C-alpha cells in the first residue's frame, strides 16, 4: 500500500529526478569539510526567522501608538511570547554572525573566482539585505532606542547633497518620526526585504547547482579560465559524491548545534527590550544601536568632523562596490588563502577594526556621563587637609558638572582627561586659560564662571597630583627668574 502510494507520487512528481538534480547532486569529496557548513547554517537561521517572525505578527501591532504595548504584552502576558521574541532576536544575531563567517570563508577559499562570480554577487546582496533586516527589525522594536535610531538615520540622510530633505521624508514617510515611519519599516521588514531575500536566495542556490560548489582549494592549483570548468567536471565525474547523503552530515551536526545554541541563548538571556516607550519628550535616554551597528555608531563619534559626511555617505558605497565587484578584478589565479597573504591580512584588519569599534561602542568613552556630577562623589583623599578656597573649588568641580567629562579616581566621564594628576601637566596659568577659553573638545566656561569661582577651581586643581610628583612648572618664568 505505502509502496504503491510512493510509486504514484514518484510517477506524478518525478521525485527521484528532482532529488538527483538537487540534494543528490554530485560534489567534490573535498567539500566534505567543517569549513563548508556556514551557508546551510545561514539558510537555517533565515527559515527560523521567517517562522518566528510570522508567529510574532500574530500579535505585534505595527502602529506607533500600540507597537510598544504589544511588545510588553508579548513579553509578559502572551503564552511563551517572550520565548518567541527571544528566539527571533537571537536568531538574527546568529544569522548575522554565521553569514559573516560564510562570507569570510568563501573569500579566503577563493570561492568567488571564475566561474562563480554571480554566486558571490548574489551572496553580497544577501548579506546587505540581512543587515537591512537587522536594522529594520530593531526599528520594529519601537522603543526609545528605535526612535532615536531613526533620528540618527534621518540625520545621516539629511547630509545627502541636493536631495537631503527629500531623502529624510522618504525614509520617515513624512516630516517627523511617527506612525507612517513605523508602518513603512514594518512593510520593509516583513514583505519587501524578505521577498528580495527569497528571490536572491533562489538565484544563489540555483547557481550552486549550475556552477557547482567550490572545491577545497589547494595552493598552487590556480584558476585558469580556459581549463577550469573542464577540470572541475572531470573531477566530479571521477570522484564526485552525492551531497546527500555523503556530505550533509557535517551540515546537519552544525545546524542542530546552531538551533540548540540559539534556544540556549534565548532561554538564558531572554528577548531584547523594548527599552523605554518611544516618547520623544522622555529625553533622559542614551540611545544606542544593537551590536551589529555599534561599530558604525562608534566610528561616527571618532571620525574627524571634516571627513564624516564623506565616510558616512561615500565610503560604504565604495566598500560595497569593491566587495561586489571582487570576482571581476580578481577572478582567476590562486584560490587558497595559504597562497594569498593579502586576503588574510584584509580579513584580519577588517575583523580587528570592526571588533575594536564595537568594543568602544559598548562603553562609549566619548559620551559625557550625564549623572556623574551628582552621582560620583569627590574622592575623600582629594579633599583631606585642603584650604577653604581649595574646598570651594572641589565643590565647583561637582556643581559645574566638570565630572560629566572628567573622571576622578576612575569615576566620571572619559570625554576629557582624568583630573587626578592634572597639576603635574598644567600650571595654574594654563589651568585658568583652559577653563575660561576651553579648547579642543572642551567648552569655554568664561561666561559661566565668576572670576572668584575660577580662582577656587584652579586652586583646587593645583592640589591634584601625587605627593611624589612635582607640579608642572612654567619654564619661561623659571628661566627669567634666574637672570
Amino acid at each position, binding site marked *: 500500500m505505502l509502496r504503491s502510494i510512493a510509486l504514484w507520487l514518484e510517477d506524478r512528481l518525478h521525485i527521484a529526478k528532482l532529488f538527483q538534480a538537487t540534494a543528490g547532486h554530485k560534489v567534490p569529496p573535498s567539500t566534505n569539510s567543517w569549513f563548508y557548513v556556514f551557508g546551510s547554517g545561514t539558510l537555517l537561521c533565515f527559515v527560523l526567522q521567517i517562522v518566528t517572525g510570522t508567529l510574532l505578527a500574530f500579535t505585534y501591532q505595527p502602529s506607533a501608538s500600540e507597537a510598544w504595548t504589544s511588545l510588553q504584552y508579548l513579553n509578559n502576558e502572551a503564552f511563551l511570547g517572550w520565548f518567541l521574541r527571544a528566539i527571533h532576536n537571537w536568531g538574527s544575531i546568529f544569522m548575522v554572525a554565521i553569514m559573516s563567517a560564510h562570507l569570510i570563508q568563501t573569500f579566503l577559499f577563493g570561492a568567488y573566482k571564475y566561474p562563480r562570480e554571480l554566486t558571490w554577487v548574489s551572496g553580497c546582496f544577501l548579506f546587505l539585505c540581512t543587515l537591512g533586516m537587522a536594522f529594520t527589525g530593531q526599528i520594529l522594536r519601537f522603543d526609545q532606542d528605535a526612535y532615536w535610531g531613526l533620528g540618527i538615520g534621518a540625520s545621516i540622510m539629511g547630509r545627502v547633497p541636493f536631495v537631503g530633505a527629500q531623502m529624510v521624508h522618504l525614509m520617515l514617510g513624512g516630516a*517627523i518620526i511617527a506612525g*507612517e515611519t513605523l508602518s513603512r519599516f514594518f512593510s520593509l521588514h516583513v514583505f519587501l526585504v524578505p521577498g528580495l531575500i527569497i528571490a536572491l536566495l533562489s538565484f544563489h542556490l540555483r547557481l550552486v547547482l549550475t556552477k557547482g560548489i567550490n572545491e577545497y582549494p589547494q595552493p598552487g592549483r590556480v584558476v585558469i579560465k580556459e581549463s577550469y570548468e573542464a577540470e572541475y567536471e572531470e573531477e566530479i565525474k571521477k570522484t564526485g559524491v552525492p551531497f546527500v547523503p555523503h556530505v550533509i552530515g557535517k551540515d546537519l551536526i552544525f545546524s542542530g548545534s546552531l538551533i540548540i545554541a540559539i534556544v540556549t541563548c534565548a532561554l538564558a538571556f531572554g528577548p531584547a527590550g523594548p527599552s523605554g516607550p518611544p516618547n*520623544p519628550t522622555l529625553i533622559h535616554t542614551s540611545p544606542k544601536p544593537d551590536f551589529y551597528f555599534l561599530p558604525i555608531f562608534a566610528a561616527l563619534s571618532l571620525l574627524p568632523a571634516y571627513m564624516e559626511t564623506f565616510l558616512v555617505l561615500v565610503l560604504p558605497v565604495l566598500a560595497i562596490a569593491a566587495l561586489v565587484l571582487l570576482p571581476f578584478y580578481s577572478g582567476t589565479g590562486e584560490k587558497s588563502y595559504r597562497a594569498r597573504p593579502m586576503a588574510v591580512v584584509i580579513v584580519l584588519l577588517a575583523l580587528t577594526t570592526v571588533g575594536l569599534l564595537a568594543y568602544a561602542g559598548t562603553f562609549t568613552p566619548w559620551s559625557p556621563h550625564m549623572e556623574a556630577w551628582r552621582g560620583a562623589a569627590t574622592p575623600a583623599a582629594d579633599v583631606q587637609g585642603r584650604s577653604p578656597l581649595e574646598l570651594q573649588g572641589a565643590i565647583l568641580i561637582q556643581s559645574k558638572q566638570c565630572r560629566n567629562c572628567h573622571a576622578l579616581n576612575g569615576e566620571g566621564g572619559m570625554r576629557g582627561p582624568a583630573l587626578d594628576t592634572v597639576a603635574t601637566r598644567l600650571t595654574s596659568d594654563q589651568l585658568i586659560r583652559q577653563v575660561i577659553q576651553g579648547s579642543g573638545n572642551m567648552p569655554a566656561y568664561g561666561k559661566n564662571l565668576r572670576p572668584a569661582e575660577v580662582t577656587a577651581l584652579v586652586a583646587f586643581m593645583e592640589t591634584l597630583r601625587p605627593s611624589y610628583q612635582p607640579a608642572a612648572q612654567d619654564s619661561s618664568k623659571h628661566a627669567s627668574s634666574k637672570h
Partner: protein
Amino acid sequence: MNETNSDCGCKKAAPAGSPPAKSVSRRNLLLKIGAGLNAIAGALVGVPLLGYALSSFTRTSKTSWISLGPLNKFSEGETRLAVYRNPVSQAWDGDTAEIPCWVRRVDSESFQVFAINCTHLGCPVRWFQESRLFMCPCHGGAFYEDGSHASGPPPRGLYEYEHKVEGGELKVLGGHLPTLAEPLKKEDV
C-alpha cells in the same frame, strides 16, 4: 522558409498545409501586440504605484505656528523644556507626535527656542543649568546656552525655531524634524 522560422526562434517546421511564412508573421504580430499591451498595462499599474510609494520624497513640510503656552511659564534667565503636538499628525502616531523643545527666556522680551535634536545625529540634547551647557548623550556634542557650538562633533549650533509672542503666548513655527538639509529657519540652510 527556414530562415523565417529561425527568426522567431522556433526549431520545428510550421505545420504542413498552412502557408508557413504567413503563420509565422501572424505569430510574431501577436507576440508584439501582447508585449506592447503588457507594457501599457504595466505602466498603468506601475506609475501610480511608484508615485504612491515615493510620494513622501516630493512632499514638502508644512509648517505652522504652534503655541508653547503663556509667557509666564518661562522665567527670565532660565532655559526649560516645552512640549507641543506636531501640527500634522495622525491618530495612530501616539506619543511620537509630542515634540519637545528647549525654551530660553533671555529677558522679558527676548526668547530663543531650540530643537531637542543634536545637529550631529539628532539625539536629544540635555540642558545643564549649572554649567549652562547643552550636552548630547550619543557622541558628546556640547552647546552653549545661546545654542552655539561649544565642543564635539556637531557641525553647527543647535537648530533654532522661528518664534513670536502673540496674545501673551509664545509661538514657534514648526512641523518637521530638523536636519542639516532642512533646519528650522530658512536662512540657516
